C-alpha cells in the first residue's frame, strides 16, 4: 500500500458528548442535514448521522455517534467511545456546570484513549442570554489548550462555527491516522491497529465525481 497513493477514504468515528439540552442534537442536525428546529421533520432519528467530506483530495466518511447525556447513563461512556477517533464535547457557555461535565469527560477520554483521540470543546452560544463574562472565556480557552483540545463557539441557530469545527477535527484526525500509518510503516502490526478503527481504503482510480452514477451522496 503506497503511502503517497491517490485517493484514500478515511472512516472516522466521532462521539458527541454533553449534558442534556446543551444543544448536541441541534449541532449535529445542523451539520449533517442543515436543519434547525425543523417542524417538518423528515429525519427519523438524530442519534447516528453520517457526513461525507472531501479534504485536500481525500475522502472522509464521518460517523457521528450521539450519546445519552443523562447522569444515570454516565457509567456507560466507555462503551460508547471505544475505538473512536474524535470527540465533540458540548457545553452551554451560560452554564458552568455543563462545562464541569465536559472536564470530567475529557479526563475519561484521555485515560482511555490517550492521545489517539482528537478533542473539540464546543461552547454553544445562546444569543438571547449573553450573561457570560470575558473572564470565563479565558478560563475555558486555557483549559482547552491544557488538555490538547481545540475550543469553538458555535450557534446551531445561526449556523456559525460548526463547519469550521468539524473540518478542523477531521484534519486533526487525518494527521493522527497518518502519523499512526508512518509509525507502523511496513510493520506487521498493521492488522491490529487498523482493527482499532482507522480504516484506510484505496479508491479505484476512476472514481471521480463525474463517473459516479449513484455512489455520490
Amino acid at each position, binding site marked *: 500500500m503506497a503511502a503517497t497513493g491517490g485517493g484514500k477514504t478515511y472512516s*472516522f468515528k466521532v462521539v458527541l458528548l454533553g449534558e442534556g439540552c446543551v444543544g448536541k442534537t441541534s449541532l449535529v442536525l445542523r451539520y449533517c442535514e442543515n436543519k434547525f428546529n425543523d417542524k417538518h421533520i423528515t429525519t*427519523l432519528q438524530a442519534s447516528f448521522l453520517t457526513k461525507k467530506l472531501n479534504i485536500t483530495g481525500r475522502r472522509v466518511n464521518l460517523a457521528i455517534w450521539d450519546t445519552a447525556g443523562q447522569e444515570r447513563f454516565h457509567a456507560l461512556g466507555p462503551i460508547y467511545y471505544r475505538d473512536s477517533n474524535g470527540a465533540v464535547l458540548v457545553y452551554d457557555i451560560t452554564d458552568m456546570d455543563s462545562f464541569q461535565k465536559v472536564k470530567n469527560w475529557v479526563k475519561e477520554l484521555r485515560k482511555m484513549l490517550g492521545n489517539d483521540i482528537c478533542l473539540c470543546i464546543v461552547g454553544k452560544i445562546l444569543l438571547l442570554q449573553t450573561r457570560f463574562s470575558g473572564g470565563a472565556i479565558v478560563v475555558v480557552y486555557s483549559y482547552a489548550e491544557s488538555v490538547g483540545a481545540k475550543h469553538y463557539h458555535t450557534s446551531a441557530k445561526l449556523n456559525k462555527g460548526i463547519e469550521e469545527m468539524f473540518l478542523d477535527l477531521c484534519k486533526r484526525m487525518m494527521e493522527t491516522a497518518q502519523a499512526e500509518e508512518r509509525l507502523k510503516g511496513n510493520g506487521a502490526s498493521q*492488522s491490529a491497529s*487498523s482493527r482499532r478503527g482507522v480504516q484506510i481504503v484505496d479508491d479505484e482510480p476512476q472514481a471521480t465525481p463525474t463517473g459516479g452514477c449513484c455512489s455520490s451522496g
Partner: protein
Amino acid sequence: MSQRRAIHVDPSELLCTKGCGFYGNAAWQGLCSKCWRDENQREKQKQIQEDWALAERLQREEEEAYAYRQQRTQPHSTPIKPLSKLEERKTKEKPSRVNSVTKLFTAKTPSKKDVSFDAHSSPSPSSSTGRHSSADSDITTKEFIDFLKPLKSGREIFKQCRAFTESMIYKRDIEVDEFSECVQDFYQNLSDRLLTQFKGSSEHVESVMDEVEKYIMIRLYKDVFCPETTDDEKKDLAIQKRIRSLHWVTIEMLCVPVDEEIPEVSDSVVKAITDVIEMDSKRVPKDKLACVTRCSKHIFNAIKVSTKEAASADDFLPTLIYIVLKANPPRLQSNIQYITRFCNPSRLMTGEDGYYFTNLCCAVAFIEKLDGPSLNLSPEEFELYMSGQASPHWPPPTAACSSATGSAALTQVNQSMDLLTGLGVRQERVLEKARQMESDLIDWTDEVEQKVQSVLDSLPAGTPELPVTTDSGTTPTAASSAIDSDNVENELLPPPLQPQVFAG
C-alpha cells in the same frame, strides 16, 4: 472526427476476423454474427464446464473434509456418551413401536419382518441429521460460489476461505478469544488483499467480506456460539433472571418518551420486541446485527410518532432498555459475545449497525448495574420492589399518589386490605371455635368414661363374672359380649327339633 475516420476505413478491415467472408462487427469483437454466436457458445460452454468442475471438486473436498471431521470426532465422542445413548434409545424406541403396530396388523407373520424393519430404520435418524447440516452448508457454499463467479479472483477467494474454515474446524478446542483473533485476522488480511491486489472499491470489498463472513460463520457457528469453554451460558441465565426480577420497572421510571396508547406506537413497540428476540435465531453475525438494527428503527418510529421529533440518544437508549426488559431476549449475552467476536470489524466500529449494537451493549450494562437512584427511586423502594413486597402498580398506603388513577388504585388497595383484615378476623374466630369444640369433645368423652365407670362401680362386686343371669341385658356392653361370645349356654337349651316322618 472519429466518425469521419471510420468512413475511410479499408473495407477488408470490416470483414469477420474469422475469415468466413461475412462482415464483422466491433460489438462482436470483429466477428460476424454467426461466428460470434459460435464463439460465444464455446466460451459459455467452457465457463459452464469450468463451473461444473469447480463445483464437483468442491463437493468432493467438502465430502472429504466432512468425512475427515466425522473420523476425527469419533474418538472424541466417548465423553459425550449421553447423546449417543439417547440416539440409541431413540432408534430402539422407534422400531419397537413399529413392531407393535405391525404385530397388530400382521399378527401371523412373526418377527422376521420386524427385524428387517429394525435394520432399515436404525441408521436413518443419524444420517438424516448429518445430511441436514451438510445440505445447509452446501447451499451456502453454492451461494458463495455463485456470488464469487463473476469476480476475477473469485476462485482464489473461495479457496482461501474454504481452507481457512477447515483449518478452524480442527482448532475448535482452543480458547474462543484466540479463535476470534484468528477469524478477525483472516478478515483483516483478506480485506487488505482485496483492496490492494484486486483494486476493489471499499463498497465492493465490504460486499465480498459480507459473503465471506456468511460462508465462514455458518460453518463455525455450532462450535463457537456459546462455547462450553466460556461462562457465556451462565451469563445468559444471570441476565435472564435479572430481567425477570425487574418486571415491575415502568416506562415512567426509565423516562421513556413513547406513548403506547397510540396504536402505531404500540405496534412499533411490539415489532421492536419481536426483532430483538429474533436475533437469537440467526447464525451469521451480520444477520444478528440486522435484527438489532430493525429493532432500533421500530424504536425510532415509536419515539417519532410519540414526540413528533427525531429521536436522539437521550430518547433512544432508555427506550431500548425498556424494549430489552420487555423482550427478555433469549441467550442475550451469548449473542452479544458472538457478534463482538466474529462480526466484520468495520461494520461494528463505524457503521450504523455498530451504533445500534453498541447501544444494546449499553442497555445490557445498564440493566446489570441498575439500582434505585438510576430509576429515580430510593434504595428502600427499590428493595421493596425487587423483593416483591411492594409494587409500583399497587403502592403502599404511605406512598403519595398525585394522579387520579393512582388514588383510585389506592382506594382499591385499601378496600382489599379491609377485606383481608376482615377475613383474617373471621378465620381467627373459626379457629377459636374449632379449638373450643375440640376441648368440648375431650370433655364429653371424659364425662362418658366417668359415667360408665361410676355405673360399673355401683354394681355389686363379682357380678361381672355372672353373665348367665343377664337375660335382660341392662348394659349394652354386656349384651354385645353375650351375643359375640361362643354359645356357652348351648347345652342348657332344649335339643333342636328333629324332622320326623309320619306314616300314613
